């Protein structure tokens, strides 16, 4: 029954070599799916002409305004008919994954069965925003596929000017560096914004990302409008048995060159055990019978380097939470922006702490919705109005941890300097 396969001399070359081949997968599907036969022809045409041939449109599911990425072919014959007619519609459903992207085989097999029945059989784990991408569906089948996926407890993600699908690192599930419950943070926030995910009505996209420590495995600082990055306030924890084990294996050269020498704020020193400071802000751990590492936690910027090198021997402190940074994004249109600090530390332990995080998120998205220009990301809005106006809008006090350095130019109106000094002092006195 299967339709004759198109010649695909370019794609055929992507079947050799040691890395798993997506082309081999497409061909397996094309054996009994005409849509995939034509998809291979469509893609081969792109390879030959070095151009893309999909256009967007409007396809969705009942009740939602986004979450489906419509794709219609632009490869047409003289009569404006699709050349690859069985791949003329090739829409994607974006489905939000569980935090940390954990699955059991039961749910994955159910996804496969649904997509075998209603779609192309091609699923991407995962898209760059974190969605499970069910790729390749006709307009007619989008609703059917969504209904069945939705019955399994999964929901559509974001697209367009909306709150977008989010990602959390493996964190609490399997990582000793995790400083808060990333999955809880993700669900607390994202599931409170479902209306803004499913019915796009913001000036532009808004992304949250959740990383459990400053290694930021979710790349939240560069890629999210609000980055929730785990950190701690108290002293680095130490474990002498693991420190000695590390030293026995790696020796003095590596300890000096790779640990002490690479601390960005020179917070670590190698000392004789008897000379180690007894200061309350100092962590120390013996590495052999005579020498110890001494870490001045007041100088430490929580970069994670020494902890990464000597995992277990050194560990994040116990007073944990997150630093919140706002405004990260890539180039368009004013140039790349990193997220910058808006809350240096927010404790994340109790349900009330997570509610406070949600409250901050709501204030931020509300302010963005009301003040950003069309197609302006949060970081660009802050650039336009200034950080101080943004902070006032979301009711957050200024803090020197928010800056690299104070202003280097005098171009500012400061009529109210005295009143502001009085206010800051009164606040300090009250604290």
């Amino acid at each position, binding site marked *: 029954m299967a339709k004759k396969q198109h010649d695909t001399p*370019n794609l055929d*070359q*992507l079947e050799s070599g*040691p890395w*798993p081949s*997506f*082309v081999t*997968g497409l061909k397996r599907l094309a054996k009994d799916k005409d849509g995939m036969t034509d998809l291979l022809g469509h*893609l081969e045409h*792109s*390879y030959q002409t*070095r151009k*893309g041939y*999909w256009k*967007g449109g409007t396809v969705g599911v*009942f*009740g939602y305004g986004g979450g489906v990425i419509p*794709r219609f072919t632009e490869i047409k014959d003289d009569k404006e008919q699709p050349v690859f007619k069985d791949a003329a519609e090739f829409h994607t459903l974006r489905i939000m*994954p*569980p*935090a*940390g*992207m*954990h*699955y059991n*085989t039961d749910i994955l097999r159910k996804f*496969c069965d649904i997509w075998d029945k209603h779609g192309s*059989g*091609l*699923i*991407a*784990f*995962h898209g*760059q925003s974190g969605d499970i991408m069910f790729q390749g569906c006709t307009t007619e089948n989008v*609703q059917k596929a969504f209904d069945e996926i*939705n019955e399994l407890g*999964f*929901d559509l993600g974001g697209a367009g000017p909306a709150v977008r699908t*989010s990602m959390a690192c493996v964190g609490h*599930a*399997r990582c000793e560096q995790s400083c808060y419950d990333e999955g809880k943070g993700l*669900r607390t926030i*994202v*599931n409170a914004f*479902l209306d803004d995910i*499913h019915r796009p009505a913001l000036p532009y996209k808004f992304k949250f990302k959740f990383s459990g420590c*400053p*290694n*930021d495995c979710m790349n939240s600082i560069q*890629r999210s409008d609000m980055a929730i990055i785990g950190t701690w306030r108290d002293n680095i924890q130490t474990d002498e048995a*693991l420190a000695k084990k590390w030293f026995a294996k790696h020796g003095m050269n590596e300890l000096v060159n*790779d640990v002490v020498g*690479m601390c*960005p704020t020179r917070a670590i020193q190698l000392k004789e055990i008897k000379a180690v400071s007894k200061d309350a802000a100092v962590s120390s751990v013996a590495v052999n019978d005579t020498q110890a590492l001494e870490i001045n936690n007041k100088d430490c910027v929580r970069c994670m*380097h020494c902890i990464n*090198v000597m*995992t277990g021997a050194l560990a994040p402190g116990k007073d944990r939470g997150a630093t919140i940074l706002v405004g990260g994004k890539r*180039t368009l*249109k004013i140039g790349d922006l990193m997220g910058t600090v808006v809350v240096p530390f927010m404790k994340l332990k109790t349900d009330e702490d997570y509610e406070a995080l949600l409250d901050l998120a709501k204030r931020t998205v509300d302010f963005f919705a009301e003040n950003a220009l069309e*197609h302006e990301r949060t970081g660009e809005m802050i650039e336009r109005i200034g950080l101080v106006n943004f902070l006032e809008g979301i009711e957050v006090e200024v803090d020197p941890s928010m800056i690299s350095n104070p202003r280097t130019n005098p171009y500012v109106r400061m009529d109210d300097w005295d009143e502001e000094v009085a206010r800051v002092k009164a606040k300090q006195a009250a604290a």
Partner: protein
Amino acid sequence: MSQPQLRKPVECGVPDHMQYLHPTLRKNYGNWKYHDRPRPGVLHHVSHSGEEVWSVRAGTQRQMDVYTIRKLCDIADKYAEGHVRFTIRSNIEFMVADEKKVAPLIAELEKSGFPVGGTGNSVSMIAHTQGWLHCDIPGTDASGVVKSLMDELYEEFIHEEMPNRVRLSTSCCEINCGGQADLAIVIQHTKPPKINHDLVANVCERPSVVARCPVAAIRPAMVNGKPSLEVDEKKCVCCGACFPPCPPMQINDPEHSKLAIWVGGKNSNARIKPQFMKMVAAGLPNNAPRWPEVAAVVKKILRVYKEDARPWERMADWIERIGWPRFFEKTGLPFTKYLIDDWRGSRSNLNASTHIRF
């Protein structure tokens, strides 16, 4: 005529991940003590409770057919208590609570064509986009570029021989959905859009297209008696920002859409602060199906980094130590005037000191 009753969505949001965790991960949630790596592709985590778990990481093609996914499920059922997870770079991880299962699991994965690796100081799978397969604005393919490069970098995926971890990305337009990376491959257009004036008025919301341009090079105009848009080609930086909201402004060109290489992006806060990546090479041809010119530059940069960087130096840390002149000297890449930033904030990318390495 009555419409069939449509099902109302259950607005359930993100599902609870706890139900999908491997039993050992669920039991030790938030209670892990440390980890080590017994071999490339394997992480060994120890909990404060004393329980241990081994995670075996394997590369996938990301865009997977259901047969591939079912095969991975069979392997998970046989060795890994029926649980898996995916990393942000589309690697799959199988967790096992019994160390004895690690070797047979690795053997089964390798036999089935899934490379085991991507941990520690390896070159992990390339974060990528949709490309010609599914995107509406792609200058090149994504999965094919990645397949070609990972074939070339296979040995670096299955070993941990780099100075530190190496993260790669590819992006099929300048929006750069693949993201920041130690080394990134991104389309760089070199010619202004070609405008189909017959279609602009019907397809494009002209004021928002005008507003989208970062250099104010687009203005409304009447062309052949029809309302359209025109581009000041001297001002145009060929970024392609006008193309998504206005498809008749075709930016992609089989010959003039080139590939550029960027290095030194780093999101981790470890050591130096997070860094944006910097453009170091451009003008590479969009040479499907295997992009050999791109692969040659990527491999050259990685080879020099591997030989020259010290342990724990990421690409950005290494370049900060050796300096840009030596980076260009060692990699043999030509430093041209186009690599000197002249965009907003560019003066902070100039050397305001006498810190010069001779």
